[in-house]
């Protein structure tokens, strides 16, 4: 069965520090992988996606993610975080014929000044 695991419920980093949010998935075929960000009281915004090709994917707001098939992972990274990056981040996997996408439970990012 499809599943997505985000091991960290909360992460706190200092402004200017690097960031890595972890995502592991279980999927029976080649996955489509996504990262979304949600600010308080807002909807979910697509940060980046991986369908095929280069396993290092660039997204908006300076984020990138790397698909590692051997580790079933799709971790999100940013070299230097800004206070405005404080939000909740969701990893998702999909790609089946019926088009359903499954989401992880989210990681809330806190930024220290």
């Amino acid at each position, binding site marked *: 069965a499809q599943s997505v695991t985000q091991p960290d419920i909360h992460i706190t980093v200092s402004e200017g520090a690097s960031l890595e949010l972890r995502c592991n998935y279980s999927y029976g075929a080649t996955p489509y992988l996504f990262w979304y960000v949600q600010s308080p009281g807002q*909807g979910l915004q697509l940060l980046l996606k991986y*369908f*095929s090709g280069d396993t290092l994917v660039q997204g908006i707001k300076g984020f990138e993610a790397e698909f590692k098939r051997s580790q079933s992972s799709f971790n999100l990274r940013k070299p230097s975080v800004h206070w405005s990056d404080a939000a909740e981040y969701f990893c998702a996997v999909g790609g089946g014929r019926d088009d359903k996408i499954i989401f992880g439970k989210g990681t809330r990012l806190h930024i220290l000044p």
Partner: protein
Amino acid sequence: DAGITQSPRHKVTETGTPVTLRCHQTENHRYMYWYRQDPGHGLRLIHYSYGVKDTDKGEVSDGYSVSRSKTEDFLLTLESATSSQTSVYFCAISESTGAGNTIYFGEGSWLTVV
């Protein structure tokens, strides 16, 4: 902007009353979804539609029904609202390209059942 509008954006209702949430899209996407978001559970799929009058259940469909009589509108109905249905509800569409399909979300509908 994926052209998704949800209404109402906020609603307070009493236990046992029916509630309908509306999702409207302007870009003729075939697939539409309703998710609910709750602390500790992330996003869970309630129902989805793959065309006019074509719908199917998601993982948390009990207590909910949907209808899609037009491509642009996807309605979610709580026949008799319960406190456990207090949640944030997100409508989404799937945009298909040659490479794959991407989900885009509406702004959400905050529902409180008292």
